């Protein structure tokens, strides 16, 4: 293949990755922005989303589209419920103390991952895409489903934007984010907002996973990669800045696909991890976030 | 470098600090004499805390110069200034809540012992950590609470504990940021006595809202408003100053 078509293919793949990454990174970012905690179990919510998607589509015989649509509804709901419960039971008990929360969510990571290992088994499983059609470029054919992932992710992001900026829930959320004590004084049920935001973050990860499940295999360890990538995106985007995170997800998702075509994946990960750590140390406001005074 | 007048312990020149659009400290020239108690008064937001933060090194100035005992300390980190003898009791009480009262003061005493040497030898009766801690606790009347956790002390006692911790490092210049805030009338009276006891060959900056208290103790009073120095005089002079009356004393 020539360089031109090759780059087009790499960009399409990058765009798909960026689409899913922006969903899961947005979830992590939301939780960090409002609760001021890092959810290390975020990737496991993603993994569980994919596992539920597989199970639902497996259980529903008939057209795979039916299973997919059901999964799109069921997976985020179940995951959201689980996350909400975890927040109310565990994180509230430790007052969302940032350091204790990291330890607790590491524990949650193990519990979720290992429970899935017991229930779902160690094998990777494939899920049928909801529909098959190929878009034929002059140089290669491309999966129509993958293109639709980009569109669906964009639509979901728009919905999130609408909720945050136009609804009462979004208002409560932003008020809590800006000043927790003040929000409490004004009678905002901060505890509930925390639980809901934590659940919303997990649901975004689960949604991303449902979209990706028909493309990638479903496996109990599949949560680690999106966790690290989301971490990177949130840090580079400037901790807690939504606009920064989305921009970073786009850039990183796109470039990751392209870079790993040229470098050994280990070296690429090594260098990018190091660079991101240095960003966090020397430029904690991120590369894309606005500088706060 | 400019020659410093012999009696001046600390002097600032054209000190400035902004926060975004607000100028918290504006062109401040301050000069403290060795051994004086200097009151700093002014309405909320006048820049008093910001000014002493610049002196102690918690904040860096945008421009200007600070000279302490003939040394330009403008660029020095807070801990180095503390070693030169500048101590600071915060406006919001800052102690070690999880440690015992004894350990709280011991942390200060340990620094004093480390620092004792050539220019600042320890006095004979205060050679050991225990002795320093003991004397500071007796001075502040906290001796009874040695083994209690600091967090269990009443608010007034916590403020005293912060003073005791600072006394343990035996400061040359002791900055107290609104020490009587939240204290009862009795406690303020005891506090006045305490200050009189600890002032010997120390220079003290006293930021206060309680005017009778500060007028009673201070040798000189500086009035701040909107980041700048509005007036500076002895307490009597300040009370008569027409500008101070109108802008601050509200008469």
């Amino acid at each position, binding site marked *: 293949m020539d360089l031109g078509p090759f780059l087009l293919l790499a960009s399409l793949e990058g765009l798909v990755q960026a689409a899913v990454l922006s969903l899961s990174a947005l979830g992590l970012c939301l939780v960090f922005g409002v609760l001021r*905690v890092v959810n290390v179990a975020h990737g496991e919510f993603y993994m569980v989303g994919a596992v539920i998607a597989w199970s639902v589509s497996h259980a529903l015989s008939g057209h795979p589209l039916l299973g997919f649509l059901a999964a799109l509804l069921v997976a985020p709901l179940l995951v959201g419920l689980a996350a909400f419960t975890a927040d109310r039971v565990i994180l509230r008990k430790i007052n969302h103390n940032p350091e204790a929360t990291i330890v607790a969510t590491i524990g949650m990571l193990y*519990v979720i991952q290992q429970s899935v290992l017991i229930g779902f088994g160690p094998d990777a499983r494939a899920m049928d895409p909801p529909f098959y059609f190929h878009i034929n470029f002059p140089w290669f054919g491309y999966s129509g489903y993958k293109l639709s992932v980009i569109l669906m992710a964009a639509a979901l992001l728009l919905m999130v934007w609408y909720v945050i900026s136009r609804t009462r829930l979004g208002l409560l959320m932003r008020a809590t984010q800006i000043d927790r004590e003040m929000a409490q004084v004004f009678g905002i049920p901060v505890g509930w907002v925390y639980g809901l935001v934590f659940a919303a973050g997990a649901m975004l990860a689960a949604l991303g996973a449902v979209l990706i499940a028909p493309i990638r295999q479903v496996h109990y360890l599949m949560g680690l990669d999106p966790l690290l990538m989301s971490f990177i995106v949130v840090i580079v985007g400037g901790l807690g800045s939504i606009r920064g995170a989305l921009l970073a997800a786009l850039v990183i998702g796109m470039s990751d696909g392209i870079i790993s075509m040229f470098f050994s994946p280990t070296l690429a990960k090594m260098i990018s991890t*190091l660079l991101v750590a240095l960003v966090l140390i020397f430029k904690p406001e991120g590369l894309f976030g606005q500088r706060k005074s | 470098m400019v020659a410093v007048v012999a009696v001046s312990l600390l002097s600032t020149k054209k000190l400035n600090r902004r926060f975004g659009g607000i100028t918290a400290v504006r062109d401040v020239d301050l000069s403290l004499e060795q051994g004086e108690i200097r009151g700093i008064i002014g309405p909320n937001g006048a820049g008093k805390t910001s000014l002493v933060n610049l002196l102690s090194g918690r904040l860096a100035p945008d421009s200007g110069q600070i000279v302490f005992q003939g040394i330009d300390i403008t660029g020095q980190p807070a801990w180095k200034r503390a070693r030169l003898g500048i101590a600071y009791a915060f406006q919001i009480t800052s102690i070690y809540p999880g440690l015992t009262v004894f*350990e709280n003061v011991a942390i200060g005493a340990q620094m004093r012992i480390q620092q004792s040497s050539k220019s600042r030898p320890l006095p004979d009766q205060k050679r050991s950590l225990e002795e320093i801690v003991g004397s500071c606790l007796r001075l502040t009347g906290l001796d009874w609470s040695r083994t209690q956790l600091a967090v269990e002390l009443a608010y007034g006692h916590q403020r005293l504990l912060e003073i005791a911790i600072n006394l343990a490092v035996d400061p040359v210049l002791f900055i107290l940021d609104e020490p009587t805030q939240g204290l009862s009338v009795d406690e303020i009276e005891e506090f006045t006595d305490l200050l009189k006891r600890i002032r010997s060959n120390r220079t003290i900056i006293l930021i206060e809202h309680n005017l009778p208290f500060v007028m009673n103790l201070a040798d000189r009073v500086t009035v701040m408003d909107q980041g700048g120095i509005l007036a500076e005089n002895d307490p009597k002079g300040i009370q008569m100053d027409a500008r101070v009356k109108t802008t601050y004393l509200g008469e």
Partner: protein
Amino acid sequence: MDNSRKRSLTLHIGVLAFLFLLPFVLPDYHQLTITRIMILAIFALGYNVLFGYAGLLSLGHAMFFACGLYAAGLPIYHLGWAVPSAFLFAIAVSALAAALIGAIALRTQGVAFMIVTLMFSQVVYLTTLYFSDTTGGDEGLVLPGHARSFEILGMQVDLTSPQVRYYIALGLLSASALIVYRWVNGGLGREWVAVRENESRTRMLGYNTFLIKLKAMVISGTLSGSAGAAYGLLFAYIGSTFATIQYSIDVLLFTLLGGVGTVLGPILGSFIMFYLIDFFSEHTTAYLLATGVALILLIMYFPLGVLGTLRKKWLPWLP
């Protein structure tokens, strides 16, 4: 005060004496297990200097363990070094690495510090994979025969003997525990606790808090590194599994379980957790479940750990 110090010293020496006598009654299998645990306890002891005393929660201490492991094993494997010099070399390298990483990572605090240490550790792990020609990568390297014994002070030491390994591990653990005990009960310990409890207050008293934290980092990293070196040398194997996040989490867990900010806590925690995981892995492949549950329960109900809780309730003299 004096009385309580005597009591606590007695307790510590008692624990070490107990470990000294243990092999006389224990079957070989447990001897081997306890040897491993004692080395991991040194790791936890080092970790606790940073976490328990200086209050800095690192999520990447496996990098120091791995650093010692490789710095000891690689010169032996590739250059034919003798065991003692490799061990000393590993300690020096770990100290240097801790100083370097500390100098950079300590510019952050709290959550950022946790993430940064995690990432640095991940970089170390990936490095061991990337240079797998040298390190053996995932599969690791088995150290050659000449590394199974060494001569010191005219004595021949045979590292294939379980007994010898046990007493070397115990010797190292005792030395580490006594060093840590001395430090945390001295001026340095007071400085660490001061920084942990209120850094800005401490700075305003004249302490160079950055330097204090850096000291904790170097001591902690060096102890962790020597644990890694000892592990590699005693069991003649080095591999990149020791650099994984898993090891960083384990050492946190040991410390959290046994008692944050106590000298004996990490040792106790290592014992309990190791046997707990051992027990679980006999019954299920998902033994990491135990780790997860333990982390959650500990942070929720016993954030001070076994000894920390004991100390708070009944034994205030415990260091």
